[in-house]
């Protein structure tokens, strides 16, 4: 059984000239690896089970690798960050108590770009598929034998090869050339010795990547970049700049050259940006797919579908809209949409929003209440949300609210108005006159979905009720399951902070000149649908502020529906930070990606006034470290939100709305939020992106994957 010990490079298809020698060393040397390669390969092993950790560590040592072990994902991540460039490969377990292995995988992929191999006793196809779609280079089934481990070095070489090719062919690579190379490499990948399906999917993924990259290359011909550049490490700051640039341009229009120009970072090449953009896009795509942590869930895709279909329009209104407006607790949303929906796991599911924004239509208040309960069951909000979105008629204006550090909200043309507020709602929410549906377009991505998700997870009773959803989006960060995770969107004008139940992160941008408490009744809102307790969202409370309402006179800038006041934040329990990132594509598929973002809630703070007016491109940044107390007049609930940093950037372009909200988690009353706060002491705006992601993960305390 040791024949594999002598790596046969031909089986791995090293695409180097010297591979013909048949010695991995020679091939390795050609790719710049140390000559004793693969010995000395620096592997980071992450597994919470001590027995497995010990065994696999020993196996890796037997392969002459340089092993570092870690039983905690957070530690592993910080280790990787501290010692950037130190590790060659990461081996991680899937089910870990503190962080989902897939999340870790994504972080590593985005931040460090290291090959990651997943391991698990779970061999269900859907889980393996999930590993692949999240970018794992391989998936090993436990109990792990030593033979596959002897070959893991191939992934390191392959990746380096790929990067080399990227550099060499920057800007002038023809699509065909690339494709053929990829094909060749893919075919030569040979045996991964482990998961069988990984290979094919990898090929497919590569082809897709190839195409994408080629498109980008075509755009930029001017960048010579002939020489090999040192590998760029994407730090949080750098990534933040990148994301900002991307959001500014619009995710669809973001091309490496322009991004590079916007970023103005010395020493960064177009290729670096291109490859990072690729990864980022994949990441976003993945986010659009609801994740199912629950092992009990059926196949990943089917669950997804179920959730998608689940949320439909209830009572003729947009669940999403409701959700967005924060009136509809995510739970409600799911509940409303379908009777029995597949309950997804806790945690954040990325809602998939279609291009339409959603508005909370007022109707369902009553139904909502009921449904909230159901939603609390754990229906995945997102799924419901996405369903509703998809089922929603195009005519409605929906806004995609994307709360999150980088929230990109792009609203398609179809989005006519930010929120369609049904008459009953309309009366309630008395949106400022000017708010029209068009404005709605500007709304942010609905965190609602996010929230919905969260809500369903959280036990919030929902109390959206009769809250008209003002246009725009609502984001509600709602914690998921046990851990509160929720993303909410921050609208610059988030006035009311509402904290629903557990999620305490509510980012609200105060309307200019409005206080959260005050304008509740007058402003439609519903931003935060943190489904808190029923008392939380009451009609009066919700004030919506369309984030980027084009309506000049709308007080609500941007479309942020902050669940205001009414939502008696009392319920705010834990606010988990959710990263919501939704990308609105105008493609037919209408994929919505939502990533909940921790939105810090600002209460009463006014962000720049008139931020989201018809002014396009306005960006709103708010930093607040404040403890906001929102008093719900009607319900007399108070919720305290502490928000760390909230920044919302909204940009309006045509029908597209990009809303970038960065917010740090707001800590809320109960559980996880605090945890998050504690665990993320060093959140700073720059690192919002990562922090959000991480905090979301960390917020998943108790959540079992």
């Amino acid at each position, binding site marked *: 059984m040791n024949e594999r010990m002598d790596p046969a490079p031909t089986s791995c298809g090293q695409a180097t000239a010297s591979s013909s020698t048949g010695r991995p060393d020679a091939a390795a040397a050609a790719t710049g690896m140390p000559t004793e390669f693969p010995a000395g390969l620096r592997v980071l092993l992450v597994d919470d089970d001590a*027995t497995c950790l010990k065994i696999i560590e020993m196996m890796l040592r037997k392969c002459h690798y340089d092993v570092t072990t870690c039983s905690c994902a957070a530690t592993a991540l910080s280790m990787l960050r501290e010692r950037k460039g130190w590790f060659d490969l990461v081996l991680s377990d899937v089910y870990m108590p503190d962080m989902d292995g897939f999340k870790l995988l994504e972080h590593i992929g985005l931040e460090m770009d290291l090959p990651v191999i997943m391991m698990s006793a779970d061999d269900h196809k859907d889980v393996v598929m999930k590993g692949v779609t999240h970018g794992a280079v391989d998936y090993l089934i436990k109990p792990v034998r030593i033979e596959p481990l002897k070959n893991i070095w191939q992934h390191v070489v392959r990746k380096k090869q790929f990067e080399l090719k990227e550099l060499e062919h920057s800007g002038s690579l023809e699509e065909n050339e690339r494709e053929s190379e990829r094909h060749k490499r893919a075919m030569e990948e040979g045996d991964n010795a482990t998961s069988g399906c990984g290979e094919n999917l990898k090929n497919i993924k590569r082809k897709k990547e190839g195409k994408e990259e080629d498109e980008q290359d075509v755009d930029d011909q001017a960048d010579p970049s002939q020489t090999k550049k040192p590998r760029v490490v994407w730090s949080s700051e750098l990534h933040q700049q990148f994301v900002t640039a991307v959001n500014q341009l619009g995710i669809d229009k973001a091309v490496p050259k322009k991004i590079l120009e916007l970023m103005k970072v010395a020493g960064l090449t177009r290729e670096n940006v291109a490859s990072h953009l690729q990864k980022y896009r994949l990441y976003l795509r993945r986010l659009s797919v609801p994740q199912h942590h629950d*092992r009990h869930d059926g196949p990943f895709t089917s669950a997804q579908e179920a959730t998608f279909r689940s949320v439909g329009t209830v009572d003729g209104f947009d669940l999403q809209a409701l959700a967005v407006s924060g009136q509809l607790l995510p739970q409600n949303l799911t509940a409303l949409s379908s009777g029995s929906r597949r309950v997804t796991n806790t945690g954040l599911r990325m809602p998939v929003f279609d291009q339409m924004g959603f508005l909370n239509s007022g109707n369902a208040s009553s139904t909502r209440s009921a449904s909230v309960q159901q939603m609390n069951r754990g229906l995945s909000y997102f799924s419901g949300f996405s369903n509703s979105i998809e089922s929603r008629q195009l005519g409605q204006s929906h806004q995609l609210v994307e709360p999150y550090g980088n929230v990109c909200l792009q609203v398609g043309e179809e989005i006519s108005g930010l929120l369609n507020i049904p008459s009953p709602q309309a009366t309630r929410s008395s949106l400022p006159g000017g708010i029209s549906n068009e404005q709605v377009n500007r709304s942010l991505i609905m965190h609602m979905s996010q929230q919905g998700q969260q809500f369903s997870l959280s036990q919030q009773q929902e109390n959206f009720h009769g809250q008209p959803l003002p246009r725009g989006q609502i984001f509600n960060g709602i914690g998921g399951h046990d851990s509160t995770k929720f993303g909410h969107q921050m609208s610059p004008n988030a006035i009311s902070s509402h904290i629903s139940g557990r999620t305490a992160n509510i980012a609200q941008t105060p309307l200019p000149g409005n206080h959260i408490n005050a304008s509740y009744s007058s402003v439609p809102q519903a931003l935060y649908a943190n489904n808190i307790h029923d008392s939380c969202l009451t009609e009066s409370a919700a004030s919506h502020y369309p984030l980027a309402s084009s309506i000049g006179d709308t007080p609500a800038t941007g479309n942020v529906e902050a669940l205001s006041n009414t939502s008696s934040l009392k319920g705010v329990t834990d606010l988990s930070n959710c990263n919501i990132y939704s990308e609105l594509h105008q493609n037919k598929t209408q994929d919505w990606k939502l990533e909940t973002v921790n939105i810090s809630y600002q209460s009463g703070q006014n962000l720049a006034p008139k931020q989201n007016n018809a002014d396009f491109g306005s960006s709103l940044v708010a930093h607040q470290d404040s403890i906001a107390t929102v008093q719900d007049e009607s319900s007399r609930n108070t919720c305290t939100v502490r928000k760390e940093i909230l920044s919302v950037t909204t940009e309006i372009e045509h029908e597209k709305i990009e809303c970038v909200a960065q917010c740090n988690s707001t800590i809320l009353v109960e559980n996880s939020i605090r945890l998050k706060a504690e665990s993320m002491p060093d959140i700073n705006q720059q690192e919002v992106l990562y922090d959000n992601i991480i905090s979301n993960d960390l917020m998943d305390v108790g959540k079992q994957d």
Partner: protein
Amino acid sequence: MALHFSSAHPISALHPLLCFFLHDTYPEMEYASGLQRQLASMKKNLFDQGYLDEQFYQLEELQDESSPNFVEEVVTLFFRDSSRLVANIDQALQKYPQDFRRLDNFMHQLKGSASSIGAAKMKNECTSFREFCNKENREGCLRSFQKVKKEHAVLKQKLENYFQLLKQVGPVDKATHSGN
């Protein structure tokens, strides 16, 4: 031991030679060989009866001069952690209403550990427990868990005996290990 050199008894004639090759010294050979045989048969039983599977061989392969007690260390570690886990599951089963997801997570952990040391029977019981968990069948879970606990205890005892004997026998060359 009387050596029979008569050709009519080839086996007995070979026996001392065989023993000689297998063991260091002749006098200790017999004693050692007895223990060795005992050890070998104990091990064979563990495999034949399904308590251990192939993964256990993998562990043995990892053992070498630099870590001469690797297998025992791993097994000890396993029983330490798994005992704790079993206690947690016991506790969780007492609760009402039942949190099946949590139970399933526990069991997934236990199963993963068990499979990594090759504890086959225990792993199987864990699998059936998880099936009951999936169906939210509390009764089934309780019954199944009793089996898990039993397998856990039995394996623990057997392996303790095995390692004790192993210590007595002393380092033996791999040739005596079956199944390599």
